[in-house]
């Protein structure tokens, strides 16, 4: 981000962010199989609403179409993907090979993640890899991109251009370490950050203040992660069962306070308020809307938030 005139990837997301626009990304989960039609439908639902959409990589360790293949299908359809890549399932050999493949298929953004432990998925009996962690993966891709060498030092035949992202979770512990970890990710090569979904706005503000005090907002673009709650049940479930996420009682009670049929509406109202709030926070360069299996509401959400048309 130091030199904004030189594009690292030429991706749309990079263009939007470097030109100072407030970026909007969302999520587009690949099917649990080879159902391309289903994926195409999701792509149509978000077309024109976002600057890029994350393609998850076997999210929560449930087997799905690979993020490379789904990302390539998105490229073909003219909607820009952010390919997620987790280190859970591939060692440094497979990771680097996959990155070359993804680039060759037109993918220009990637998000480097460690990944959910397989115990949460549908193959808890699988052997995991974790040869690299997310920070090491960032550094590996950055080295390929900027130095033209793979991890062992061998030169690459034909370089890659990639806009590099990472995740940050301001709500996990130890809290004071979260900003240090963010700084490490930036030093390892993160050009942009998408945060875990934010419900505790107070803690997020505190996190962003620490990040800005360290000057991190000037070193990478931070997109605030938001997930609309579909029901009081979902809010309570996420609060209780998803580690690293806490939904304040205030929000749970607010959704619980409206009739079942209107809870989804209330969830979207809350999301729109949250979008308004994060836009006011110093250092926030965009939002990442993770509407889990709710792509059909992305158009309405982005419309009502005043994000359309996209730059």
């Amino acid at each position: 981000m130091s030199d904004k005139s030189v594009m690292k990837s030429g991706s749309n997301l990079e263009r939007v962010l470097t030109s100072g626009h407030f970026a909007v990304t969302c999520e587009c989960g690949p099917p649990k199989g080879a159902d391309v039609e289903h994926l195409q439908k999701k792509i149509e639902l978000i077309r024109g609403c976002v600057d890029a959409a994350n393609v998850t990589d076997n999210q929560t360790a449930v087997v799905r179409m690979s993020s490379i293949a789904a990302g390539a299908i998105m490229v073909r359809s003219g909607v820009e993907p952010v390919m997620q890549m987790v280190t859970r399932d591939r060692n440094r050999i497979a990771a680097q090979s996959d990155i070359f493949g993804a680039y060759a298929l037109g993918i220009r953004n990637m998000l480097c993640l460690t990944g959910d432990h397989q115990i949460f998925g549908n193959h808890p009996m699988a052997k995991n890899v974790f040869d690299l962690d997310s920070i090491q993966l960032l550094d590996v891709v950055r080295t390929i991109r900027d130095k033209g060498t793979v991890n062992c030092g061998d030169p690459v035949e034909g370089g890659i251009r990639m806009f590099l992202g990472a995740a940050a979770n301001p709500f996990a512990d130890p809290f004071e370490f979260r900003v240090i970890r963010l700084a490490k990710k930036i030093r390892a090569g993160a050009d942009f950050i998408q945060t875990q979904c934010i419900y505790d706005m107070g803690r997020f503000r505190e996190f962003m203040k620490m990040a800005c005090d360290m000057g991190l907002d000037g070193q990478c673009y931070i997109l605030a992660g938001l997930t609309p709650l579909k029901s009081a049940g979902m809010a309570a479930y996420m609060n209780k069962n998803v580690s690293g996420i806490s939904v304040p009682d205030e929000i749970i009670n607010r959704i619980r306070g409206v009739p079942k049929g209107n809870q989804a509406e209330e969830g979207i109202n809350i999301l729109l308020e949250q979008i308004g709030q994060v836009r006011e926070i110093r250092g926030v360069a965009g939002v990442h809307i993770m509407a889990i299996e709710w792509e059909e509401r992305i158009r309405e959400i982005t419309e009502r938030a005043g994000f359309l048309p996209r730059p």
Partner: protein
Amino acid sequence: MIVADPKPFGQVKGYLENFERILIVGCGACTTVCLAGGEAEVRLLASGMRIAFGRDGQSKTILEDCVQRQCDVEFVLPVLSRVDNEKIDAVVTIACGVGVNFLADRLGKTPVFPGLNTTFYGAGMEPGLWAEMCAGCGECMTALTGGICPVARCSKHLLNGPCGGSEKGKCEVDPANIDCVWQLIYDRLKRLGRLDDLQNIIAPKDWRTAADGGVRRTIREHLYKLR
């Protein structure tokens, strides 16, 4: 020490259906300490087998033995001669997996079966509780982490700090039973006044020294050359 758990009784019994003269061998080292494979456990397993096969109307000869260490040739030699002399036709060992292999390599035509599931290198935390501490990676990096091992004790072997699932000191994989080792490392480095160390990016590990580099052996030149 090496920690192991008894295999389900029925599984071990299943191995032995077709044998008549069976020797159960314990180990006086790690598996004695973790109460899985010492003299007492040999006696227990042997009498269990006698009763269970008796109920099935099968009269088998179940013999017992326990050596000081099943991972050293001098202690294992007497077992080998016993197998020969007493016409043993199957051996069950309740040493760790090292004992199983060490016997199998030396037992000629006599089959050897494991009576335990070997689990990890760990320490006794309190009576009856053992926990994993080291994964034998061959390049100890704990000088960087306050002496606490992320390779063995982080569920994802992360080397650069806690994942997003660390909450209130617990690991997302099993918050009731697993501490997040990165919380432990953080707290320890804080106590040591070394929190700044956490800003360093630790490079990908060279796994050649671990099992990934192929089967390992160690030579102490001064001893080995004497042979």
